[in-house]
């Protein structure tokens, strides 16, 4: 495997983007990424585009094609990656492997999603159908908040995690989103507001859930030779990509207090990067629901199993704490346009590791210059853990 660096990143404003088509939205992330890398669209040899809702919740059936044409990428190798909410990380991994193998010198991973062109009950339907349709949705209408609520109930019963602990995750992530101009939800919230918000799937309430968002993010990867040729000053190197999948049926899981796919993907990533979790300066973890962030702390090895709530109570996952997590607002408040999320994590991680472009108020101090992105599809149906270092 050749060394591969991230040489350009871009991200659109997240939120309700009924002002733009899928291609126009992708362009908002693509153009700054190309400019950041100092290349032209013709330099891109391979494109992995991630989007999960094509033909269902927005109109284009094959978005990779229309986006590539719109961005001047016609002629490059092209595919669409789908790994549910981890589609963006799957696209990143594909682009990474394409360059690492020597197949291409410059590759693009671009995630784009439009989720707000249809009404909420229809979106709840589509997302709910994304586990095992026949056995868990068709018969019993299990929703996506419901998937994570099953985990929340189990975690509370086993470890004494409380609804207040979940609310603390929302409070932290809304605080950082309020400092992030591209975030979807920029309001600060209190524990009381979170606890009194309407129940979605008990014990999860409105403020335990990420919003339904539109957005795009783009990442340009280059081989070490290309990095030298382009005289990239501050490349951020891809240290490792770990991956694993879980069962489609939730009923086939070993337990409901964590995600085995996260544990496996993380162990693989730490091994490949030859690091331990305590060397990380910053982490972006999959917090589509507040319980997901608490389970991620444990599954990624930031604390012992069952001690995730303690970490958030002690403020250890804020800037200045043991491991700052989701300082961009996370999926919870920055937003979760599902195909874009994985690329948006790499965008934020790259900016943080460069320590230059993020709003100063939420820049994490760097010691080892190592960061991690944890992207889950479904409830651990897919998982990718990516480690970058400068």
């Amino acid at each position: 495997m050749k060394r591969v660096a991230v040489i350009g990143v871009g991200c659109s404003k997240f939120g309700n983007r009924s002002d733009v088509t899928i291609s126009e939205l992708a362009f908002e992330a693509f153009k700054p990424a190309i400019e950041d890398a100092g290349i032209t669209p013709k330099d891109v040899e391979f494109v992995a585009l991630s989007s999960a809702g094509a033909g269902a919740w927005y109109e284009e059936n094959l978005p990779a094609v229309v986006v590539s044409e719109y961005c001047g990428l016609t002629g490059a190798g092209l595919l669409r990656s789908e790994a549910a909410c981890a589609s963006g990380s799957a696209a990143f991994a594909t682009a990474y492997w394409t360059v690492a193998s020597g197949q291409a010198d410059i590759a693009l991973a671009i995630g784009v999603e439009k989720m707000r062109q249809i009404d909420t009950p229809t979106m709840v339907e589509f997302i709910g159908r994304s586990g095992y349709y026949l056995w868990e949705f068709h018969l019993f209408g299990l929703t996506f908040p419901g998937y994570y609520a099953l985990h929340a109930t189990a975690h509370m019963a086993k470890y004494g995690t409380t609804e207040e602990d979940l609310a603390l995750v929302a409070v932290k992530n809304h605080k950082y989103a309020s400092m992030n101009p591209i975030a979807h939800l920029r309001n600060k919230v209190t524990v009381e507001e979170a606890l009194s918000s309407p129940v979605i799937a008990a014990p999860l309430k409105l403020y335990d859930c990420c919003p339904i968002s539109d957005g795009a993010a783009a990442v340009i990867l280059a081989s070490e030779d290309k990095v030298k040729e382009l005289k990239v000053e501050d490349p951020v190197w891809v240290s490792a990509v770990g991956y694993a999948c879980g069962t489609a049926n939730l009923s086939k899981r070993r337990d409901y207090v964590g995600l085995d796919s996260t544990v496996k993907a993380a162990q693989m990533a730490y091994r490949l990067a030859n690091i331990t979790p305590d060397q990380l300066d910053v982490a972006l973890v999959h917090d589509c629901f507040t319980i997901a962030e608490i389970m991620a702390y444990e599954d990624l090895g930031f604390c012992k199993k069952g001690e995730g709530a303690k970490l958030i109570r002690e403020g250890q996952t804020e800037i200045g704490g043991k491991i700052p997590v989701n300082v961009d607002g996370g999926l919870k408040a920055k937003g979760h346009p599902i195909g874009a999320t994985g690329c948006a994590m790499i965008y934020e991680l790259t900016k943080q590791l460069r320590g230059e472009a993020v709003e100063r108020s939420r820049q994490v101090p760097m010691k080892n210059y190592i960061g991690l992105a944890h992207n889950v599809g479904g409830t651990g149906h897919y998982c990718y853990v990516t480690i970058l270092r400068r």
Partner: protein
Amino acid sequence: MASMPAIRSREIKVAQDIPISKTLPFWEGLKQGKVMATKCKKCGKIYFPPAADCGECLSSDMEWIELSGEATIETFTHVVIRPLTFQHERPYTVAIGTLKDGVRVLAWLTGFRPSEIKVGMKAKLTATTTPDGTPIYVFTKPT
């Protein structure tokens, strides 16, 4: 939906026919009040949902067995915000229970007061029929 200028896409309605020829005894069993699973004759693994093929040893030599009804509830949620095609239902409780046979089942939990429902409690897996006549299985109160 759009708050900005927009063109409405052409409308399409779809519904697929989901094949059940290889799991027919399961659907027939529900009508007779039984919840059936498959068991691999070669390696002994029990499958619920029933599977026609064994992912462990790749054998397709399976037999049908009736599941025991006794379940321990592992976890549950009350789904308030419902999907489009469940809008006509009142909020429902989805639970996962482990049966004595070792397999887990996800199904609605019915007949309990919300305050009674706890992780670790006992429930009974029951084949039943919905008001519109569809055979289904649910967790109910043990008698």
